């Protein structure tokens, strides 16, 4: 019995179909959404959502953080940003990383909330570059 996966970015629905398993990049470690899994809400870090049919990965999407809502029959990923891995632009991501590093250098080091936000963003962009280069 498959599970219905939906990857939704603020602009549009990227994927809506049935897969056997989806591995999500949870904030505290990867989690697989499979049929009959206990319902769960998950905070995502920047990383790859891998869709499995049987034992093979059929599609890989990069998500830049977000949330996932997992139920026994359905898995909804609300991504801040989502792109198929094959369409990642490494140049853009590298430029973004540079801008973020600069922001990091200039940031007030006592402002911990700002720093942790920046850290998450930098981590997400690094994951994007890594994902892009592994695909290309």
């Amino acid at each position, binding site marked *: 019995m498959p599970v219905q996966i939906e990857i939704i970015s603020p602009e549009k629905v990227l994927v809506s179909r049935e897969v056997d398993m989806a591995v999500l990049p949870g904030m505290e470690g990867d989690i697989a959404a499979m049929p009959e899994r206990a*319902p769960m809400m998950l905070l995502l870090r920047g990383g790859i959502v891998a869709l499995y049919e049987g034992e093979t990965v059929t599609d890989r999407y990069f998500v830049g953080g977000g*949330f996932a809502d997992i139920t026994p029959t359905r898995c909804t990923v609300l991504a801040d940003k989502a792109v198929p891995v094959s369409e990642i632009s490494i140049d853009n991501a590298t430029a973004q990383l540079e801008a973020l590093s600069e922001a990091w250098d200039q940031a007030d080091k006592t402002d911990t909330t700002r720093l942790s936000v920046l850290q998450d963003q930098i981590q997400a962009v690094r994951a994007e570059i890594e994902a892009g280069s592994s695909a290309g």
Partner: protein
Amino acid sequence: MASLKELRARIGSIKSTRKITSAMKMVAAAKLRRAQASAEAARPYAAAMRRMLGELAAATKGEDGAPRLLAGTGQDKVHLLVPLTSDRGLCGGFNSNVHRLTVQTIRRLQSEGKTVKLLPVGRRAFNFFSRDYADLIIDKVVGVSGKEVPFSAASNLGEKINALLEAGEIDVCTLVFNKFKNAMTQVPTCQQLVPMVMDEADEKPAAASNDVALYEFEPDEGTLLEMLLPRNLQVQIYASLLETAAGENGARMTAMDNATRNAGRSIDSLSQVYNRTRQTNITNELIEIISGAQAV
């Protein structure tokens, strides 16, 4: 009476105006279709977000220290109004409707002794409010509407509002924008963002289903809620920005359609005057020639 030459020039200029307005109408119609499509595409995200938020809110119900975005600051003194308008004019009463509603709200709040702050979005709103309410404006956002609305515009605005709220500078935040009904009608609306207003309909399914208690949360509910609320704010703003974009193009399309039709009407009446004047001139000349010939 105007001379033939003057009339010809006027007809010519109205003809070129008509060309411009009808071209603008076509452009607005094409943009409207695109704006409507992107508003449509953004709906599933908002719906899923609302569902998750409903479940989370139900799970965290009764806990102390609810985030400010959900519960507000507990006060009702400083109101932030965010009028959303376009950057360009020539779209009928689209912008002035928002202005009027905002001004009414400002007056009402001020008469109740509340402090009002303004964060106009769109060049039209900024220009309008700089005239009478310049001291209320704390920030502005321009250059958003017109083209495709990027989500980053909404998230920046959301972060600004969130920062103001966290700093305790505002207690209540309300959006004033045109709700898109159809291409002809946009309804100016106030929508309160902070503290959050949960619709009855949103809470019901969460309360009715028994799954709520079974949910696992990673990390815990509080942290998730804290992450989800700013996102929800941004999504609501994004939805309103998209409605504004669609409404602007709808209003412009209608306004330009009217303008094109008006131009056609004035061309008709001017052409009639032109023809009549020309005929009069010819008759006059004939009379002169004939009477001249008779006199000889």
